């Protein structure tokens, strides 16, 4: 079976051929495997956005090849168009894309562009709305009458309704309050467990990446600086810090304790896990 996304030695230059030529990303080779949950981290300007815009062919590589589902997307317009639907890209602040009279019509925009039959579109709209937790009565409202968090979820549903093989989300929780953030993460998890589809998540929040992703790609100066499991990547705390990144707060606590010589693992990513380990240790110490 072919991999959903593969990049072979991809570079992208802005203002190519001029003195101001800047490489936004250079010599990137990577694969996103079927069913994986990949997190991408990197500070602003590290090339994350440029990178994900190559996944569905919104940007064309200056050098190298992008394969979606095993096919070079530069070979024809049809393949490129198919890639748009196979890789669902949801940008930062996606509520900016809402434009239709009703939420349902807006969610249907993608499926309609896929030229699907009416009943299939209706099914997908209902399904996507369910994934993001929009109640059926909300579908007939104007998207502009929704609350901030609801708008965000409606916009994400608009991408999910294309039923892409890979869902790529760029900072889906940016600017939301803690409850809104939690809801977004919940719905991503929910979507994945129900559809089993591949997800790529770009985030500034190390806590979220640690909790959601299987594999982490670290971008720095347009190149892949690290690519490995959550454990592998977050064990390089000092390297991450020099790149303007960090490790989750709870991991910082455990790494510090570990470094002080306490018998705790440094790779702890959730408070629950941390509490369990420390409790066992403290009770054992007393007994």
């Amino acid at each position, binding site marked *: 079976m072919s991999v959903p996304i593969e990049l072979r030695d991809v570079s992208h230059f*802005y*203002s190519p051929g001029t003195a*101001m030529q800047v490489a936004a990303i250079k010599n990137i080779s990577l694969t996103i495997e079927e069913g994986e949950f990949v997190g991408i981290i990197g500070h602003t300007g590290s090339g994350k956005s440029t990178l994900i*815009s190559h996944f*569905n062919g*919104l940007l064309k590589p200056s050098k190298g090849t992008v394969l979606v589902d095993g096919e070079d997307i530069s070979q024809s317009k049809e393949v490129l*168009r198919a890639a*748009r*639907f196979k890789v*669902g*890209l*949801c*940008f930062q602040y*996606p509520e*900016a*894309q*809402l*434009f239709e009279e009703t939420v349902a019509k807006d969610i249907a*925009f*993608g499926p309609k*562009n*896929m030229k699907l039959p009416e009943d299939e579109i209706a099914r997908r709209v209902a399904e996507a709305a369910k994934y993001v937790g929009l109640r059926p009565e909300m579908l007939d409202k104007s998207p*502009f009458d929704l609350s901030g968090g609801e708008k965000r979820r409606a916009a994400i549903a*608009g*991408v999910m309704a*294309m039923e892409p093989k890979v869902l790529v989300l760029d900072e889906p929780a940016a600017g939301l309050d803690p409850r809104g953030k939690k809801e977004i993460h919940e719905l991503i998890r929910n979507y994945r467990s129900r559809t089993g589809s591949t997800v790529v998540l770009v985030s500034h929040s190390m806590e979220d990446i640690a909790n959601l992703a299987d594999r982490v790609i670290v971008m720095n100066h347009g190149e892949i600086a690290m690519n490995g499991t959550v454990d592998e990547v977050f064990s390089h705390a000092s390297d991450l810090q020099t790149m303007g990144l960090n490790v989750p707060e709870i991991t910082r606590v455990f790494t510090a304790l570990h470094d002080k010589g306490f018998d705790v693992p440094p790779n702890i990513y959730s408070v629950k896990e941390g509490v369990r380990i420390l409790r066992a240790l403290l009770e054992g110490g007393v007994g």
Partner: protein
Amino acid sequence: MVKDITFGQYYPSKSALHNMDARMKLVLTFAMIVCIFLCHNFFSLGVMALFTVIAVIFSRVPVKMLLKSIKPVLVILIFTAVLNIFYTKGGETYFTLFNKISITEKGVNTAVFTMIRIVVLVVLSSLLTYTTTPTMLTDALERLLSPLKVFHIKVHTLAMMMTLALRFIPTLIEEIDRIMNAQKARGADLETGGLIKRAKALIPIFIPLMVSSFRRAYELAFAMTCRCYTGGDGRTRMKQMKLGYRDFIALLICLISLAGIIVLNRFFIKII
């Protein structure tokens, strides 16, 4: 990147031209552009070209940047040159094809003449925007037009609107880019189809743009109120406009150029 499209392409420097009073710069640029059209032969045009070269030197704007500003008008430049070469007749004939298409002395002269004119025009006007910030420019315009207040024209409001437009053009370009990408990612087809289909395809871009622009305007109004903006009355300016020795030297140079143009126009035959 779309972000690189600069509007009112200012080039920061401390050159003599940068330090001139924006009002004087505006008036003189306008006057000298009129002068370009007073030139009737290569000698007077030469004065104009010389003036431009001097201005460029005193602006310390790299020639490369000026060439960049000529690039967009290159097509017009070539088009007018070709048109002039083939359609203006007179003087010695250099070349004839099929008894119909011919290139004459007058044709070549006019072509070269027009090209120089356009280049000088573009360079002079872009020098103004390279050496003057958009704020200074609108400020200068506001002050130059302030006598119009007598006719109850709200000059300050107009100038403020211009400043805000200049400020928000790059932001809106970025926004359009973002919205277009988001809709393309949902399979929006903006490139193919007939006129009506394409116009329809713009709706998903136009509506979000309107919505966000209204929101921006609303928030901006709050932000301006918070900073005690109540219109033009009682406002002062950080950057004062004062005519200095530089401005009078510039004025003098312009007057000399004008005199040169008039004299040379008289002494040599008219080409155009």
